Structure formats: C-alpha cells, structure tokens
C-alpha cells in the first residue's frame, strides 16, 4: 500500500506525500502569519505590562542602585552580632548619601525603606541636608551626630535586609505579615492591625453573596424565559440585554439616585409612611450599596448562561417524571435541576470572577465598609504611590481569578465562549 502511494507523483514529478506535506506546512505558516500581528500586539501591549507588574512586585533594586558600595560593605557585617557596622560602612554611606543628594535621589531610598519601617523617610531627608557638612573621618561619629538613629543597630538591619535586588517584602505586606528586622523572622500581624487579609476576605465573602443572590434572582427568570414561547422570550430577553449593554457608570449612577438618603427609595418610603424623616435608611456608601448595585449589574451574566442551558433541556423529562408518579417538586428537583448544572456552574464562576475584580462600583457606592481589594490596589497606585505593594496585591488577585478561570474553562471551554 505504502509503495503505491510513494509512486504517485504530482505533475511536476514530486511524490504526492512530500507535495502534500509541503502544502500543509505552507498552509500552517500562512495561518500563523495571520495570527502573528495580533499576537505581537497583545504580548507587547498587554502581557508585557502584566509581566512588568510581576517584576515590580518583587523588585527591590532602589537601595542597591543608589547605595551600591554601602550595600556591598554591609554584606560583611553580621546584623545579629549586637554591634554597629564598622567605619567602612559609614564612610561608604556618607559618600553615597552625598552623591544621592546631588542627584536628588536620597529621598527615594528613604521612601522605599519607609514602606518597611516608618521613620526612614525623615531619616534620609535629614541626612541629605546635613551630610554635606561632613568632610573628614571619623564618619561614624559624624553621621550619628546628624541623627541618633544612625547609631541604632535596627536602622542598619533594615538597610541590610533590603539591599538585595529582590524582595518578598511586598507579598508579606499584602498578606499582613511583617518581617521583624531585629531577628529576621516573619510574623503575622495581630488581627486588629490586619488590613489586607480582612479586605481579601471581605471581597470573597461579598462576591460569594453577590453570586448567590444573582443565582437566586436569576434562576426563576431564566426558567420562565426557557418555558415561554420563543416570540415572548425574544421580547423579554430585552429586559436582560438592555442592562447588560448599558454603561456600567449609568447603572451605578442610577443606584446612587435610588439608594441615597435623599434618594428615590427613601423618599418613597417616607411618602407612604413606612419610615419617618429621621429614620431614612442608609443603603449606600456601605456594604449594602455595593451588594445591591453589583447584584443588579452582574445579574445578566448569570441569566444568559442559565437561559442558554435551560433552553436545551427537553420539557418531556419533567413530564415523564410526573407521569411516573413523581410530585412536581420532586420531578423538578431530581430531574430538571441536575440538568441545569453546567449553566449554574458557568454563570456562578463568571459572576464570581467579575465580582472579585470590581473596582468602579465599590469605589462609588461602597463607602468604607463596602470597598474591595481592588480599591486598595488603586489607592496604592494613585495615592500612596507604593507601587510594589499595589502590584503584589494585584498579582495575588490575578492568581485567584486565574484559578477560578481554570474551573470555568473545564465547565464551558474557552472555545465555546459566546457573547450576547
């Protein structure tokens, strides 16, 4: 059989097998060349920045870059010996602070170390002002004279432990751990000081609650949409698609108009006498506001997958169960409900993934008790300027989302994603 195939040749005398392989290779190359421009674009404009953020979350090069000689000299010093580093380290430090001052970079070191232990920002600013007067050795006494903190072992322990190129410090901070520089041990913060774990926990709890609410609210409607005739369901689905397509800001704005103290719902409740003027409900700028607004905003993401699965379940299943003597409830619970599993899984994971990364709605209606971890990322990027910590929180959040996306991919499959 093989022999015969090899003997078949194309018009130009090349065996068919080789000719086919060539044609297929060419077709593969052409296909790849078509994908290539977008691939490059996505890698450069999207994957690159995300990778950059990953690096930023472990990057610790500032101290080493601005204080290279001091960092190197400190490597020979045993930080747990109970003694201050030697004169050589002080000499290098004085010299490098002078240089950094000239380049106006000494405050950057101070700012960086301030994230690890407060007080460093002022220490370096002060040193920058006074260090120019130090001309002759001994540098040790002279530097300690500018600020007595230079005479504390702790100060040098912090500098030494942050003089390597990479740090896990931002991740420790993002998970509410703290490095004790005096012993080098990692300890978790007391629960009253915990910020980030609490926020991660709140984000996950509120997102789960939102997912559950969208399921409870979305299930009956999806079921109804799948039972009525196509003509009616085509009209009713507009009620789902219109909010789905309307700008997020529009929907958030309308919830502000509805929920605020002087808003539509409170006014209505006062008008019908359900509450009095003083008893207006606080439904916004707290967790309630976030949950209500986000449940509304994410509801279509639950209804659409549920509806598309329910459409495919034959009505005869439940009818058969009932005709075999099952109570309608039992028929629903034992026959219909298990069939909706894929839709429930897809919808829930989709809503959950979207919810834990939400920023805008919690920022506008969340107040202080309804903000999410993403609001903290934004805070570190634009207000506190602690980009390393912001990136570390972002990477952890991304990890959680990707983990759930793997489940989503198992249930739905990445190639079967549909829109609208």
């Amino acid at each position, binding site marked *: 059989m093989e022999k015969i195939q090899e003997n078949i040749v194309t018009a130009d005398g090349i065996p068919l097998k080789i000719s086919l392989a060539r044609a297929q290779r060419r077709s593969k190359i052409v296909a790849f*060349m078509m994908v290539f421009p977008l691939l490059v674009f996505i890698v450069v404009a999207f994957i690159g920045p995300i990778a950059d953020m990953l690096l930023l979350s472990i990057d610790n090069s500032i101290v080493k870059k601005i204080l290279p000689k001091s960092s190197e000299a400190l490597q020979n010093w045993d930080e747990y010996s109970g003694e201050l580093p030697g004169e050589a380290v002080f000499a290098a430090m004085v010299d490098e602070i002078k240089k950094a001052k000239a380049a106006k970079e000494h405050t950057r070191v101070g700012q960086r170390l301030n994230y690890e232990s407060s007080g460093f920002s002022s220490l370096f600013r002060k040193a920058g002002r006074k260090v120019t007067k130090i001309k002759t050795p001994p540098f040790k006494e002279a530097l300690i004279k500018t600020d007595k903190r230079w005479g504390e072992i702790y100060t040098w322990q912090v500098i030494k432990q942050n003089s390597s190129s990479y740090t896990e410090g931002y991740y420790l901070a993002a998970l509410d751990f703290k490095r004790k520089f005096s012993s080098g041990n990692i300890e978790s913060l007391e629960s009253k000081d915990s910020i980030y774990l609490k926020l991660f926990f709140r984000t996950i709890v509120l997102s789960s609650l939102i997912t559950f609410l969208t399921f409870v609210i979305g299930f009956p409607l999806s079921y109804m949409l799948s039972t009525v005739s196509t003509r009616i369901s085509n009209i009713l689905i507009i009620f789902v698609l219109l909010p789905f397509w309307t700008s997020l800001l529009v929907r958030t704005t309308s919830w502000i108009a509805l929920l605020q103290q*002087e808003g539509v719902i409170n006014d209505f409740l006062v008008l019908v006498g359900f509450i009095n003027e003083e008893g207006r409900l606080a439904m916004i700028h707290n967790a309630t506001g976030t949950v209500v607004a986000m449940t509304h905003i994410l509801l279509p993401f639950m209804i659409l997958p549920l509806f598309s699965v329910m459409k495919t379940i034959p009505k005869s299943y439940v009818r058969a169960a009932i005709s075999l003597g099952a109570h309608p409830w039992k028929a629903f619970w034992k026959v219909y409900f298990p069939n909706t599993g894929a839709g429930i899984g897809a919808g829930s994971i989709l809503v959950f993934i979207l919810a834990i990364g939400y920023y805008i709605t919690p920022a506008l209606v969340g107040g202080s008790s309804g903000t999410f971890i993403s609001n903290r990322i934004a805070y570190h990027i634009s207000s506190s300027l602690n980009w390393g910590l912001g990136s570390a929180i972002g990477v952890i*959040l991304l990890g959680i989302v990707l983990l759930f996306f793997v489940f989503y991919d198992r249930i739905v499959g990445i190639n079967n994603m549909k829109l609208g």
Partner: protein
Amino acid sequence: MSTLPPYFSVPERIWHYTFWIICVSVLFFLIFPLIVIIPLSFNEVPFFTFTKKMLAFDPDGYSLQWYNDFFTNLNWQGAVRNSVFIAFFATIIATFLGTLASLGLSRPNMPYRTLLMSLLISPMIVPLIISAAGMFFFYSRIGLQGTHLGVILAHAVLGTPFVVITVTATLSGFDNNLIRASQSLGATPTTTFFKVIVPLITPGVISGALFAFVTSFDEVVVVLFVGSYRQRTIPWQMFSGIREQISPTILAAATLLIVVTIALLTTLELLRRRTERLRGVTPS
C-alpha cells in the same frame, strides 16, 4: 399569561401565579434602575430625586437645563469628542488585527490553536483593575501614560477578544467547500477572498467591531489610570462627576447613553438575523 389547564389543583394555581409574580419582579428589578434615570434627568432642581412638582406632573417641575449644560459645558463636550475619537481608533485597530487573527485561527490545521486563543482573549479575563495597573506602570515608563495613543492602544487591547470571539464564531459555521468551489471555477485567491469570504464574515466583523466600540466607549478603569484629564471620556467625566460635584448633568449624560445603547442593541439584533438568513438558518 395563558389560561391554566382545568385540571390544575389549587396549590398548583397558587404556585403558578406566585412564580409569575416573582418573574415580573425580577424583570422590574432589571429594568427599573434604567427607566427611573430618564425622568430624573429632566429635573428642574439639582437633586437626584423626584420633587413634588414632578410627581404632580407640573410642567414647571421639568426642565432641559441639564441637557443644555451637557451640550454647552466644555468638560462634557471634550469628553464626548475624546470618547468618540478614542473608541473609533481603538475599534479600527482591534477589528483589523482581530479579524485577521480569526481568519488564521479558523484555518484548518492551525497549530497551538487553544494556547493562542487563550492568550488572545486573556485581556477579557484579567480583572480590569489589574490590566489598568500593569498598563499604568508600563506606559508611564515608556511615556505613553496620559497620551491619546496610550489610551487608544489600551482600549484596542481590551476590544480584540470580542472581535476574535465573534468572528471565529461566524467562521465556525463556514463551509470550506465554498472556497474550493470558487477556486475550481477559476477564481484567484484574492477574488475568492473578496467575493466569497468577505460577504459571509461581514456581519460577524461588524458585530465584533460594535463590541469593541462599546468596550472602549464604556471603559473607565483603564482610562482613569492610563489617561489623564486631556483624555477624559464620558465615563471618566461621570466617574469624577459623581466623586466631586454631583450634578444632574450626569443623569442627562446617562439618559443619552441609554438611547445610544438601545440603538446599538437594535443594530446587533438586525445583524444577527442577517447572519442567520445568510447561513440558511431560520431565525428562532
């Protein structure tokens, strides 16, 4: 609501009506927040709620001043221009690259299809705040932060997954025999592309482009970080408006956006019907 079968028992009847009441409430919950904003935008006073005059349908209680503000205020007019400008160019980039890639991805024997697909649609999966943070750090380092180009590129990235998904979906029902038929009848690859492939994928490309446009037009997180006041878009302006000086002009803008949404949704529905007709599927 059809008439109930006569054999339904009383509990079944009660359940039937309860179920309908639940469904109608859910529909109400979905649509009410969008409806309520429309009359509020005609408010005569700068409140986000109904005044007594409005409830009495007194014409004095209504006014067009917030629309007037929207169309004359430079902040809002700049925002409209920026929104259209950025969304337009982001859509062109996303549609061109996305369509080309989808044509490649849908060819038979495309290697590493699943891997490529997950890379290409990753901007849709990564939470916006993380994309925004990453792009902010990266773009500010290469000088694109606070430029129109930076925002356009960022929005094009966010829009491409939608184009890829819609166009590959259109191509999934594509019959490769049509290409063979055209070639066997003597058409060159170029003729085949423009006379056979293009007409069949156009509805998919247009709806992908619409998705990309809406994504850019609605997007606020990335533009907040990658952009600055000079790149302010309508959502940017609404966001900062809600945070700083709350004025019903936001409601007027929101109402106009709802109108735009309805127009887009209608277009998409018409396109969907056209695709189905072209493929010979009877509309369901």
